């Protein structure tokens, strides 16, 4: 690790001022420290922000606000989150390991860099790090993207992001030019040549909190995740589903967001359209599961992810159907 100056600013303003240029913010450090150890980041300044960021889950009439410094364990353990935003609690609980969830924060989870092994290997100058090409596209791409063909085929690793997107969350950001709120769906953007990152976070900007609007009590949600083992693995594919079904099984609201299959959390628009207004039953579920795979462009080694998406979407919808209880 290259030597760096460690700053503990007393205020957010001070932190933001320190963050310009070759500086990195440190909260949980579960991604920053490995990136520095691998020499993928070599900041001159590391700015401790954890104590300055909002922390905890705040329930209010209009919804819930989760501070960026809230740990994944605290999100998973919040009784009202578990009840009203079930998919989010499930996603938090399925991430990483208990030890990591104890220190990893919401903000860091949303802003973590991809786990692509070419990106993480300092010997490989991949496109995302400013190189000419993506080595995964023709290389070992079993874990890579099947949607969102961009110059980079890494996948967004977060479990929480699909769940937050499915709840139409917004994030509040603060930077040198003040504060702004942006829908999470706008915040994540496929990487482009001039912005080799999955987020639109500005230079020196900090993510302060995420806000989820309240929703009618009959809303149900679920997060399902397929992994290479039962714990301590990023998703091969994940699906967050939020559904509202009227008394006669008619679907009034549907949001399906996939994780682990695209460079950003991936909304399954076609599946949502298939569901809206329909009757939540086996034939429609099957149709929506197929629709969720529309537009998939698997690489040489990850065709199975398309089947996984289909199976997980189907299961998520069946689970939500069962969660409604007997009619």
């Amino acid at each position: 690790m290259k030597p760096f100056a460690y700053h503990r600013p007393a205020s957010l303003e001070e932190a933001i001022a320190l963050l310009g240029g070759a500086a990195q913010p440190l909260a949980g450090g579960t991604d920053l420290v490995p990136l520095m150890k691998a020499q993928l980041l070599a900041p001159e300044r590391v700015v401790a922000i954890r104590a300055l960021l909002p922390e905890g889950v705040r329930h209010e009439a209009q919804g819930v606000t989760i501070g960026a410094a809230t740990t994944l364990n605290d999100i998973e353990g919040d009784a009202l989150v578990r009840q009203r935003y079930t998919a989010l609690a499930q996603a938090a609980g399925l991430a990483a390991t208990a030890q990591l969830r104890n220190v990893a924060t919401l903000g860091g989870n949303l802003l973590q860099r991809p786990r692509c092994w070419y990106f993480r290997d300092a010997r490989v100058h991949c496109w995302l790090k400013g190189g000419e090409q993506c080595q995964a596209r023709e290389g070992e791409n079993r874990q890579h993207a099947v949607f969102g063909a961009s110059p980079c085929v890494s996948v967004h690793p977060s479990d929480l992001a699909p769940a937050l997107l499915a709840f139409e969350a917004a994030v509040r950001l603060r930077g040198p030019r003040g504060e702004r709120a942006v829908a999470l769906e706008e915040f994540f953007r496929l990487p482009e040549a001039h912005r080799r990152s999955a987020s639109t976070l500005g230079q020196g900007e900090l993510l302060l909190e995420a806000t989820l609007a309240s929703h009618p009590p009959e809303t149900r949600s679920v997060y399902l995740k397929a992994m290479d083992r039962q714990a301590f693995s990023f998703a091969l594919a994940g699906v967050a589903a939020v559904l509202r079904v009227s008394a006669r099984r008619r679907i009034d609201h549907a949001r399906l967001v996939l994780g682990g299959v695209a460079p950003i959390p991936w909304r399954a628009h076609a599946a949502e359209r298939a569901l809206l207004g329909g009757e939540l039953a086996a034939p429609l579920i099957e149709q929506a599961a197929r629709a969720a795979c529309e537009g998939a462009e698997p690489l040489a080694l990850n065709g199975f992810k398309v089947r996984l998406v289909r199976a997980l979407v189907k299961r998520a919808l069946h689970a939500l159907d069962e969660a409604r209880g007997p009619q």
Partner: protein
Amino acid sequence: MIARIEGPEKVSGSARYACDVRLPGQLYARVLRSPLPHARILRVDTTRAERLPGVHAVLSSANAPAISWYEESWLFDRTVRFAGDEVAAVAAASEEIAEDALRLIEVDYEALAFASGLDDGARGEPALKCRGDAERALREAEVVLEQTYSTQAALHNALEPHGCTAAWEGETLVLHESTQGIFAVRSEVAEKLGLPEARVRVITQHMGGGFGAKQIAWKHSVIAALLAKRAGRPVQLILDREAENLAVGHRNATRQHVRLGARRDGTLTAIAVHALVQAGAYLPGGEDSDVVGTYHTLYRCPNVRTEQVVVRTNTGPAVAFRAPGHAEATFALESAMDELARALAMDPVELRLRNYASEHQEKGKPYTSPESLRRCYELVRSALRPGGAAAPGSATKRRGIGFAAHDWAGGGGWPPGQARVEREGEDRARVITATQDIGTGTRTALVQIAAEALGLPPERVSITLGDTKEALYSPTSAGSATLATLGPAVRRAALAAKEHGAGQGERGENRKDRAIRTCGAQAVEVEVDTETGEVRVLRVAAAHDCGRIINPALVESQVIGGITQGLGYALSEERILDRARGLVLNANLEEYKVQTAADLAELINATASLPDWEANETGAKGIGEPPIIPTAAALANAIFDALGVRIRDLPCKRERLLSS
């Protein structure tokens, strides 16, 4: 039964491992490794590294003594042959400074062509082993099964990485080493440094696992000794996880083409195997990976022909890994036997009993415990019934049970091995050996054997081990041999001490007219999700012949550990190599997926105590390696039972199920 003697030390954190050593003035070393799979070093310039404050010594091909290593290579060679090969080393006041110094070393490489797999590597001469006429028997066989199986490169990933602390006490080198063989390290390091063995002392008090990868001296020990000499201070060199997974061994990948000939009643008439074995860039020595061995011994068969071809590639060197060769071969042979049973519509255990071997056919000698494998079949069968009704799964979940047997050439022990026992007053005694306890509980088992012979309670007997200064030779802890080698020596010493107050014991010869084997069987029950390809292991039953069980808890620990590692081998562990660049992509514990506690199935240890008095006077044999051997085959057979899908390539990743 007594609890592990060293348990309290380990639980309380007071047990000292090689990396816990802190000596006055101690330095910390790091190694610069090649970023390319094959290259010539045109220039190494360490000037800037040497100037960094806190750096005490730097070694590279520019200044290191010419010490030969591997076959025709050097400690710091001008040619690097895999990404991870040693290029230079630095000793500094801290690991961080040493890391910084590595970045200041300038190296110019000339990249060379490289090979990365079984298909593009250089093939050695085939090693042919024949009994009878397999080709003819295959032509005449009523049924022939012909299939190709492949196994992956698997990484040991012991919790404790390789490493040592090297200190010169005058002209004597003291090495605190994490090793399975303190005498092997002593003689190899002494030879490399041109020292008499008496001037090298190796100490291993505790080890966090070796699994075969720590049974030889690796470069780090000599590098640390040289750096310590140059710096005039002790040097600690512990490998990081990446180096651990690149440079100090793995289980070789194999491709095995298997032909079985049989009569319709299931009697095997021919076994013919062609095995490609990926060795990597160097042959580091240690226990051989005998991939074809079990094909000659597990079943009675008059015609066996095996060819083993070593393939050299620009990847890290392969080295022994818990039952080297046998774990790979048993996956193929026991999958093939399952396929044959299906083809003949026979019960898989019946097929194995039909071909039961009670003698070592190559040596023409009966086994010391010829019926023990049969007993293991029965024990496993009654613990988890193969062919019985599996609990019904849901619409998208199918359950199945698979069975596999194994034998193992190790576990019997052999001379030499020495021990002393000294009585301390009327009711106490001390065992003195120089074996090492590699985490398996050797201290405890040897104390129990001594206590039994002395007629004392085990808590009155203490033990010293793990230091070559004791001038009592012990072999490397490999081949599951430690207990069966040292146990009889300790017993003899204890009997002598009982008589005379103190005594020395030597391990006697094994019987010349018998062959010793260890063996066993496992059954695995899985539940396979037909939509997601997920395989969940529900239950594993295991019975292994380890002779007389000295300590049931220690045996069970090995059974649990072996099965857990075996399930990882079967399901999730695989070194991933980028073939275009020759780079290992997952030399870490995030992407190299060992099994977690959450993955563990219900383990039914049906292992019975089966004293083998013809093997040695303690009746005990080894259990370290066997439990990993049959797990992968039993799991693949269970998947077939569940789905009718045959997995012939390890690991059984979900895409292999979903594409079938």
